[in-house]
């Protein structure tokens, strides 16, 4: 591993000043479960690390009000056990506890989890494989390579790496907002605007500048979260990344769908909201037939690669099942 220098600022202001002063080759570290892993692989080679675990103001968790607020340094395991999340937003709790292992969830921060980097094997395992995300301009070995786990939504000629996280899939379904703070002050952005599709610049995962820190995640209180699920299909029953996952939430009024949210994981370069599938359900009864139709619509427009076309049928079934599970919790 490349040698690096280490700083541990005591508060948010100092952390931003540290980042702004440090310049290129500096990375934030919280739980370290992604960054330290990639540093051991020499995929991440920062010269300086800024450890933000001392920032007590990022550790708050307030789920009692009209807006749920989760500090960026709250650990995944702690958020997963929050009673309000479990009762009123089961998709959020499930997305957390169905990710990683309890050891890693005890370590990993929510902010860091949102920024988890792709599991694309060509990205992780380095030379001799080309990877525009790891080494801009080198090409993409996945497009014609082993691409079973890659994205068929949101890719480009330069990159088809799938976004690997679960929590962001549930958050995008709930229209969550991310507060970030940097040298130019604080701003808020929709979770849908946090992650970047690769386009011609796959190396830039997120719409954040180098001096910005995710401060908190805000989830608007709503009544659609209660009948919800995060349905995650994996190659083994636990402790694996999604082959396909669906965050689904539904509110039924007078026997028909009044509000519905569908988001997909494992198949896109960014957290993917299936809005046309949602639209197809509004005002209709939710049953096996309409849920299956929504599942088919959710995967229209997919551009499958050599090894992942099976996920179109699988994914449609996962969406259907997620909707039925969610509706069963109403």
């Amino acid at each position, binding site marked *: 591993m490349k040698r690096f*220098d280490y*700083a541990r600022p005591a508060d948010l202001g100092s952390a*931003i000043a540290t980042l702004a002063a440090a310049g290129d080759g500096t990375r934030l570290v919280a739980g370290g*479960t992604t960054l330290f892993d990639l*540093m051991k692989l020499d995929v991440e080679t920062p010269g300086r690390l800024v*450890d933000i675990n001392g920032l007590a103001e990022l550790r708050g968790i307030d789920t009692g009000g009209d807006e749920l607020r989760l500090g960026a340094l709250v650990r995944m395991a702690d958020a997963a056990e929050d009673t309000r999340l479990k009762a009123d937003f089961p998709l959020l709790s499930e997305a957390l506890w169905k990710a990683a292992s309890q050891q*890693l969830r005890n370590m990993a921060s929510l902010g860091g989890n949102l920024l988890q980097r792709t599991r694309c094997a060509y990205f992780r395992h380095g030379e001799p494989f080309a990877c525009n995300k790891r080494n801009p301009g080198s090409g993409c070995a996945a497009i014609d390579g082993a691409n079973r786990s890659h994205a068929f939504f949101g890719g480009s000629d330069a990159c088809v790496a799938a976004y690997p996280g679960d929590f962001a899939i549930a958050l995008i379904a709930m229209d969550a907002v991310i507060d970030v703070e940097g040298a130019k002050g604080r701003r808020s952005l929709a979770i849908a605007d946090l992650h*970047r599709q690769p386009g011609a610049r796959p190396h830039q995962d997120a719409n954040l500048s180098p001096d910005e820190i995710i401060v908190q995640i805000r989830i608007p209180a709503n009544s659609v979260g209660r009948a919800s699920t995060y349905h995650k299909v994996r190659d083994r029953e636990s402790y694996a990344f999604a082959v396909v996952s669906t965050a689904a939430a539904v509110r039924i009024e007078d026997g028909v769908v009044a509000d519905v949210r569908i988001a997909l994981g494992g198949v896109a370069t960014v957290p993917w909201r299936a809005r*046309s599938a949602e639209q197809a359900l509004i005002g209709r009864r939710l049953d096996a037939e309409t849920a299956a139709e929504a599942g088919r619509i959710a995967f229209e*427009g997919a551009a499958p690669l050599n090894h992942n076309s099976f996920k179109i049928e699988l994914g449609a079934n996962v969406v259907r099942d997620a909707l039925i599970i969610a509706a069963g919790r109403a």
Partner: protein
Amino acid sequence: MTTDRQDDVNSDISGLSRRDVLKGGTALGVLAVTGIDSHALAQIGNPSLPAAFRTEIEVSFRVNGDRSSLALDPRSSLLDVLRDQLGLTGAKKGCDHGQCGACTVHVDGRRVASCMTLAVQIDDLDITTIEGLSEGDDLHPMQQAFIDHDALQCGYCTPGQIMAGVACVREEHAGSPQQIREYMSGNLCRCGAYPGIVAAIADAARAMEG
């Protein structure tokens, strides 16, 4: 429409160019070095001073109740410090990437993958390893249960399994065999001793709670 994401996620962030960021960074760096007063920094919008970067970090912590103070290269993992500097070889290095659970220890009572823990992050914290689990010759109920249920074959994953199992019970995630399997899924056993491991944890849970 079938592409469900028409918003332009590739737009540049908040009008802030890389050049602006670099210029801002340089300015702050110069201010910090020359010690210009806090008004100048406040005008940039941030009254706080940067923290110092170091190549060697003094860390003080307790392992199984014994205090240790070490000057660490920040690249050190907690696992390597335990095994190579403190001689505690109970926690095992399986994958060294947080995927197998063989390195599981407790930090302030919570189970973590010690291979993925930067050792500089355990300053002032309490570490418990498999060596600290028994009370002298009296085995912890989880250790005894692993023996009773023959919950191992080669034994390489066992220290991690036991430390994870103890935490699993304390977290109240050992309520059923199904829940034990879910919350122990981060500990792999290449020998396939899983039925014994699940039975041992269920048994130990009764002993620990009783």
